[in-house]
């Protein structure tokens, strides 16, 4: 009886569905969709957590094993204590072969740990880790990823190659530096700078799209931390590059490397029509403490937009030559803009060695608001 009723159930539903108005038909379809969707969602949560749990469990066993092996065979290798070059140190690969390296996830875990350790060591030790990576043929996996059609695989491969300082032909990377995919393009540029044997900064000549702030952070880190990289004179791009973001980035590099040879190019940049770039140039001159540029900065001051004026006042403070105390005093006393007065006061305080008398005089005679600004700038507890 019950079986009979059960077999009649679909047909009952079908007849209800057929005879129902459109709204109810839609509702019935949605009910089925919702119940199925919810059940699928539950299944997916369960599956994803189970897979995650399995992965964590496997890695919780494997990772300490990998770490111990790397520490025992590489980091505390007795040959390393004797300053033997990394390529002459024989590596005992046998214990590594006992790892389940026939599984892709295990090989990837090993690659990731080698990269992790390599980030934390320098010189010979780093080279030995690289040798381990090569001798275990993990580089073949990376090269396979490089040939993948999926951009994320390519990016992963480039990151691995860059982290392990693996040499790779310029022709392989260079086309990727202009890829339409932003992530891939950025990864390729980083790899090119780090790995190119010829002209690591070549893409600065050809890059047409703006270097994003994030790209600049990544490039800055790679350029400033790569060992043995030939640092060019960045004046070349400051003078000739049509890409404003490249020029702005080169100004930051000039400051980092204290490239005084680039000063004439930066001074020329003061004539640029782009006032953001001009502000960057003024900032750079200040940080390089180029006293020769000070008079020119004071000369152009009145014709500049506010943010360039602020940069000029800051630059005079950084240069601290004491030649423009009167100019700073005038700006502090007579400027109508608060930020200009504050910047002038800060620069006066930075020039304290020469401006002590002026500061004392201002402390005694300033208006309450100016006095507050001056005290603010003189207080060592206040940073900005």
């Amino acid at each position, binding site marked *: 009886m019950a079986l009979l009723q059960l077999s009649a159930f679909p047909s009952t539903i079908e007849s209800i569905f057929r005879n129902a108005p459109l709204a109810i038909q839609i509702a019935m379809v949605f009910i089925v969709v919702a119940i199925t969707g919810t059940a699928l969602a539950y299944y997916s949560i369960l599956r994803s957590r189970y897979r995650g749990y399995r992965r964590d469990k496997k890695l919780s066993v494997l990772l300490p094993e990998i770490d111990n092996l790397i520490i025992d065979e590489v980091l505390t290798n007795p040959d390393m204590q004797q300053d033997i070059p990394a390529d002459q140190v024989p590596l005992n690969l046998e214990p590594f072969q006992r790892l389940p390296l026939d599984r892709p996830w295990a090989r990837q875990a090993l690659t990731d740990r080698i990269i992790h350790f390599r980030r934390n060591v320098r010189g010979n030790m780093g080279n030995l880790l690289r040798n381990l990576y090569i001798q275990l043929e993990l580089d073949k996996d990376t090269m396979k990823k490089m040939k993948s059609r999926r951009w994320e695989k390519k990016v*992963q491969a480039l990151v691995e190659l860059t982290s392990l300082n693996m040499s790779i032909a310029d022709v392989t990377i260079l086309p990727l530096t202009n890829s339409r995919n932003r992530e891939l393009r950025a990864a390729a540029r980083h790899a090119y700078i780090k790995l190119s044997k010829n002209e690591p900064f070549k893409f600065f000549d050809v890059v047409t799209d703006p270097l994003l702030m994030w790209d600049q952070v990544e490039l800055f880190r790679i350029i400033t931390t790569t060992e043995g990289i030939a640092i060019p004179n960045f004046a070349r791009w400051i003078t000739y590059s049509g890409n404003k973001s490249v020029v702005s980035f080169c100004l930051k590099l000039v400051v980092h490397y204290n490239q005084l040879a680039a000063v004439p190019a930066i001074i020329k940049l003061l004539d640029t029509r782009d006032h953001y770039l001009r502000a960057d140039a003024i900032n750079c001159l200040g940080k390089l403490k180029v006293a020769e540029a000070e008079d020119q900065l004071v000369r152009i001051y009145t014709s500049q937009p506010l943010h360039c004026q602020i940069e000029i006042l800051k630059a005079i403070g950084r240069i601290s030559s004491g030649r423009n105390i009167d100019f700073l005093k005038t700006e502090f006393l007579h400027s109508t803009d608060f930020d200009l007065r504050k910047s002038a006061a800060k620069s006066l305080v930075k020039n304290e060695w020469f401006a002590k008398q002026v500061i004392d005089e201002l402390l005694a005679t300033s208006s309450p608001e100016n006095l507050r600004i001056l005290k603010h700038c003189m207080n060592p507890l206040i*940073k900005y």
Partner: protein
Amino acid sequence: MTGIAETLARIYEGAIFVYGLVLLLTYAMLAILSIIAVRQYVKRSSYHQLNLLAGSPLAPGITVLAPAFNEGLTIISNVRSLLTLNYPRYEIIIINDGSTDNTMEQLVDEFKLVEVDFAFTVKIRSQPIRRVFKSTDPAYSSLLVIDKVNGKSKADAVNAGINIATFDYFLCTDVDCILHKDTLLELIKPVMQEPKKRVIAIGATLRIANSCEFDEGVMTRMRPPRQLLPRFQEVEYIRAFVLGKMGWSYLNCVPNVSGGLGLFDKEIAIRCGGYDHSSFGEDMELMTRMCRYAYDNRIDYAIRYIPKTLCWTEAPTSLKIFRRQRTRWARGLAQLTFAHFGMFFNPRYGKMGLVIFPYNFFFELLAPIIEFTGIIVYIVLSIMGYINWPYALLLLLFVYTYSVMITTIAILWDQITFRYYKSWREVLYLCMTPFMEFLLYHPLIVFFSLQGYYYFLTGKKSTWGNMQRQGFGKKKS
């Protein structure tokens, strides 16, 4: 006469059905878009190392603004939590908004604060700042505390902080919120990675802190709340942030960046006048004005959202406080719609006028009213014997199953991406919540929203008040 009534009932019935269907389809669309956006985020963030930025001299400066009003119970651990933020260039400004408890004294004692002569210019109007404090301990050099006259609103306190802020971006949070240590790194990333648009605001997912474990203001164990009311809110937050806001973010149509955690472009915020201290939904109101300003000045802007949970906040556990919070939010929404009604379907305001505003109007503001009238009509029709009960129950089942599905999908997106909770039981606990949400929690939301609208219409007085917090102590051993 009966014929007219029947026709009207049919029209009403049809209109409500279409309304409901559009709403549900919108949710389906958001579910699809959100998973695309979430996966995109996860894929990208796996290649971008945050520690690169953490050690970079090129990182843009950020000011953290945290207003506090009578937060004596939790202020020290909360400020300590803010001091653990991992970022190379930032300052923390705690705004004591005229607290009447010992908030200020505790801060002075704990962080060795001394009064300083601090020069600033008022760019946005706020109640006067009485004193500014800096710490003599170099360990707290990034901390600045301002003591101001109570402005009776969070908006006024934040405006005072914006006036003092040094950097171009400011992060607005509540002092009782616990932030993830990488919050600043995560939130500034979309600004630095945006190729064309000016990113004016960035938000991230918020969670309920109630059952989580904390040690010295740092979260050590994440758990779904044990109590039912906060757990409903946890589920609601997951749906709103991971599914809703991420979906809208994909279309660059984010309607609001939460007041609990948001990074803003200071210049735009100042130019559009800062927070409105008379608004009850000051976060949404500021966002609307910032968008409006961007459209009026032809600034190609973007508002971004991050699916990762970066902030934990204490949820109300009693109905009384929950009611206060929700009536306030509803009132804020009504106020905002009324104040900016000129943007409604106005093509001059692009997506804001044609998508966000109509969506907010029809599906956020009107939804409780429509639901309430629906219940009234239902009762009237059932008394008159016009209800076809099998069909009515089918429709109810339709709405119920669909709402459960959407919430479960939101939990799924969250789980497959981040796997936040440690045990299976905790996830199951959370997954069961949507089944009760529709029956127990949703009616409360509708009721409190209607109450909020009523207060808006009658102009009932209200202030930003004490949430009666429990605080985030260390787990009892």
